[in-house]
């Protein structure tokens, strides 16, 4: 098994920024990415709001991020992560090709993927007139009638790109006439575009066609009316879903849509595991916010690794015997016991080195020693467990055990 300080899952702007920060702070860093470097940014033709770049393309910007990360000595692995084991202090990541990688800290930055509608005809006609990427496929619809489903930035901007090739683009919009979810500039441009047409208050309930797309079934959600609408192509831009499916059984907390909640430090509910970028619960999903997340996560992970290393040096390699005291700061009895133990130890000429572990924040440490409740004391000699104390407030009993 290969060992790393920091493993980053995902190669979009969040993951690459984490890699830059991890590499620069001399952490042994690996970035695992299943597809192309750059994630969803790689599919974006035009980026005009990343600071320092007045106008660039997604692939160009991500190439710069990638080169930057490589310059700091980060390792890259092109593989799909199949499962993870985050139950121990040492996190283990298993790839599809059977590789196992161990890490002290993990940053999850696997982003999101286009949402499917899960309607009849969708999987059958994919690639046969049904598409999700305008850059890839718009050209195949030269002179044809294309239906676009959705009204966000992506739907409207990609719709106008498709209109460069298609003879007509019809956008199916859920909202009332005139209401689009996209930014104002794009909405205005689309409204006066000669090839763009809109069908309001409607959804697509089925994609029809034998070998290729021939029509869509449109349903008006106000009137309930349903009808077939002929077209040769359909592009779906109906939002994104987080690509966190492989974490389902990892114990990592996620909301019901699969996004990972984190605190200000990008910490998840599991110690040493961080989430950054589009796959976390957040307000704004942009390259610049992903980069910010990536930096925060890598710095927080770096501090965690430092603490872990110093714990190992202080406790596991201590010359003196160590009394590892698990306590709970919220419980008075637990605090009183700490005082008692420290007192006893100084009476015994500090025979032990007392190291306190807060149960509330050091969950993986508690797991490592299978500690359920505080107070609890594990005696270590040369890093190996030699004894567990029966904890009580009876000073003589504790003294006898020591």
């Amino acid at each position, binding site marked *: 098994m290969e060992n790393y300080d920091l493993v980053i899952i995902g190669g979009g702007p969040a993951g690459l920024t984490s890699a830059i920060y991890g590499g620069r702070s001399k952490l042994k860093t690996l970035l695992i990415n299943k*597809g192309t470097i750059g994630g969803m940014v790689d599919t974006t033709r035009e980026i005009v709001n990343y600071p320092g770049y007045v106008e660039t393309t997604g692939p160009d910007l991500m190439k710069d991020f990638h080169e930057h990360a490589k310059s700091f000595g980060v390792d890259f692995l092109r593989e799909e992560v199949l499962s993870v084991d985050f139950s121990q202090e040492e996190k283990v990541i298993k790839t599809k090709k059977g590789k196992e990688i161990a890490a002290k800290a993990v940053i999850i930055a696997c982003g999101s993927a286009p949402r499917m509608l899960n309607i009849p005809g969708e999987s059958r006609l994919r*690639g*046969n007139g049904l598409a999700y990427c305008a850059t*890839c496929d718009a050209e*195949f619809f030269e002179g044809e009638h294309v239906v676009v489903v959705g009204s966000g930035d992506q739907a409207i901007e990609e719709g106008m790109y498709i209109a460069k090739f298609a003879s007509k683009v019809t956008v199916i919009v859920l909202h009332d006439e005139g209401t689009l979810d996209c930014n104002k500039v794009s909405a205005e441009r689309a409204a006066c575009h000669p090839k763009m047409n809109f069908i309001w208050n409607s959804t697509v309930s089925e994609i029809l066609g034998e070998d290729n797309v021939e029509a869509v079934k449109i349903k008006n959600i106000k009137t309930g009316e349903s009808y077939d609408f002929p077209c040769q192509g359909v592009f779906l831009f109906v939002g994104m879903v987080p690509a966190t499916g492989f974490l389902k059984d990892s114990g990592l907390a996620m909301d019901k849509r699969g996004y990972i909640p984190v605190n200000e430090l990008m910490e998840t509910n599991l110690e040493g595991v961080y989430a950054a970028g589009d796959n976390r619960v957040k307000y704004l999903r942009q390259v610049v916010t992903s980069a910010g997340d990536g930096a925060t996560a890598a710095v927080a992970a770096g501090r965690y690794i430092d603490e872990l290393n110093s714990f190992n040096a202080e406790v596991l390699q201590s010359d003196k015997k160590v009394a590892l005291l698990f306590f709970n700061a919220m419980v008075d009895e637990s605090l009183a016991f700490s005082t008692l133990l420290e007192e006893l130890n100084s009476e015994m000429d500090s025979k032990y080195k007392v190291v306190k572990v807060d149960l509330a924040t050091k969950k993986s440490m508690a797991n490592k020693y299978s500690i359920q409740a505080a107070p609890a004391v594990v005696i270590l000699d040369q890093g190996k467990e030699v004894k567990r104390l029966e904890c009580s407030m009876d000073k003589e009993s504790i003294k006898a055990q020591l």
Partner: protein
Amino acid sequence: MSLEQLNPTRFEEIIYDNGDPCLVIFSRKTCHVCKEVVPVLEDLQPKYEGKFGFYYVDVEDEKALFQRFSLKGVPQILFFNEGEYQGKMAGLVEDDKVEEKISEVLGA
């Protein structure tokens, strides 16, 4: 190992004149899904050395070829044997699905 890129002449030769069992991925440089699928094929290729061919067609360079198969989008993997079209796979496909299809083509 990277896949051999076909032009129309090589395409004719391999698919129809030789009738070799093979697959051809129709792809383009700017397509991110293609960039995920091509490496999957590159990884599989050595396993089928001498038994099943793996080829690549760039749809930007070879418009005529994709129009001939009236393809609607990339990536598409087309399968051939003895000069006959054996079916295709569209979009993001996993290696085991490709292998299933290969054994189906070879077994037929």
